[in-house]
């Protein structure tokens, strides 16, 4: 675990003020009846999910249950056939025509603009190999949001310091370990100041010794009040960090609840079996 992470200041540009009067949390993400098929294979079967601002939702479930597709539908990396997705009230991908009531696909430019508000970190890091770490982080803020380069670089160096990689700004990704690459990917996504961060099994491809440093960065982010959806098999992370756990199987949400309830007394037999297998293997 990286010490620089646990004591780090906020990773989020405008963290919520702790102790401020709490209004009813506004929904940051709302998915309603989302259906996604690949040919005849229906991967999401009418998924509805709401995530409040500042909430950390961990999505668990067996492989092939639709977890990754769920995330990819949120920022339209996968097109969905039915349903609606809104982030902070703004529709993603499709809007409903008020006259006809029909779904209308937004223009590519509008879709690209809406993706600016949603950060995603992938299992395989997906850094741009021809750019240095610093260039990876500043590329989108400068080219997409029009942030002045000097300001973007200052913010990038700040983020690199916060994920414990200040000395790697000039390195190419290939020279970094998996854990370091993944932390750069987190910094890159955060550089766009997203309203929602999604993590797609970000520790699955990592050496077990490198998992901790990535999870620490995510924990820091959760503490800073970032709205997060995390697809993971790290059950201890889910138990310690999640506000809510969602269990998916067969393209539907089978059960959701507080981590203490899900781990102690799952309502469905399927979740009980799934968690028991993890308990047996990892003794969480």
């Amino acid at each position: 675990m990286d010490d620089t992470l646990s004591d780090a200041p906020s990773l989020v540009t405008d963290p919520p003020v702790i102790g401020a009067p709490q209004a009813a949390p506004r929904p940051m993400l709302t998915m309603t009846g989302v259906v996604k098929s690949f040919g005849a294979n229906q991967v999401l079967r009418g998924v509805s999910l709401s995530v409040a601002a500042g909430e950390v939702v961990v999505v668990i479930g067996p492989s092939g249950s639709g977890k990754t597709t769920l995330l990819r539908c949120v920022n339209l990396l996968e097109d969905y056939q039915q349903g609606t997705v809104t982030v902070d009230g703004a529709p993603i991908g499709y809007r409903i025509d008020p006259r006809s009531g029909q779904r209308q696909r937004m223009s590519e430019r509008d879709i690209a603009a809406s993706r600016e508000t949603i950060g995603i970190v992938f299992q395989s890091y997906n850094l741009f190999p021809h750019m240095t770490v610093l260039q990876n982080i500043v590329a989108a803020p400068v080219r997409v949001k029009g942030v002045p380069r000097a300001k973007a670089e200052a913010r990038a160096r700040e983020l690199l310091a916060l994920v414990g990689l200040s000395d790697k700004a000039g390195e190419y990704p290939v020279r970094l370990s998996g854990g370091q690459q993944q932390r750069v990917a987190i910094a890159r996504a955060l550089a766009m100041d997203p309203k929602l961060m999604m993590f797609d099994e970000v520790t699955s491809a990592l050496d077990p010794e490198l998992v901790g440093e990535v999870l620490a960065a995510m924990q820091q982010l959760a503490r800073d009040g970032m709205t997060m959806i995390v697809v993971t098999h790290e059950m201890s992370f889910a138990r310690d960090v999640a506000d809510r756990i969602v269990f998916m199987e067969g393209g539907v949400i089978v059960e959701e609840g507080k981590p203490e309830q899900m781990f102690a007394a799952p309502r469905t037999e399927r979740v009980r079996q799934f968690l028991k297998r993890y308990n047996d293997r990892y003794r969480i």
Partner: protein
Amino acid sequence: MKMLAPLLHSYWYLFRGAGMTLLMAGAAVLPATALGVVLALVHVFGRPMARAVLQVYLFVVRGIPLLVLLTFVYYLLPLTGIDLPPFWGVVLVMSLYYAAFMSEVFRAGIESLPQAQWDAARSLGMTRHLMLRIVIFPQALRLAAPPFVSQCVSLVKATSLVSIVGLWELTMASREVVERTLAPFQIFIGAALIYFCICYTLALYGRYLERRSLVGH
């Protein structure tokens, strides 16, 4: 030394021919590259109809020898009323011909990038144009650089065919010298050496690009 006298007496003439070869190749490489990039983009992003037309074009071009095309255009163009100087007629044919091969080189470069790179660029809010410019092209062009240089080498060598339609360049210049000196062996060895030097320099450049393409990979 006496044996090489015909070559030593006419080397400057051969160099002038080589200059014309390079000029012709250079004039054809630029439009062939530009058109190759456009055709590659049509292949990757185009609508089905555009891609079908492109496929037909690629099959036709790849299925006909360059010499046949050159001869065909040499006889056809005057009949159509298009009065194009022979040099530009040849450049046009070679550009269209090599654009087909170069489009395959660039298409392969673009398509060999993992989907993850596209996903990452899209997820950061990049439009397609921006994504191509700063993420896809820099990587795809580096991957495509070595085969691209091979195509350039092939194009330089192919210029030797244009002497058949009466255009003057290194091969034609060599033939003229041979007719004068009756020393084909020496003269064509000289011409071959010049072709080799041009192509070997290009190949070295290709290797340099290949090494450079490994940066960050």
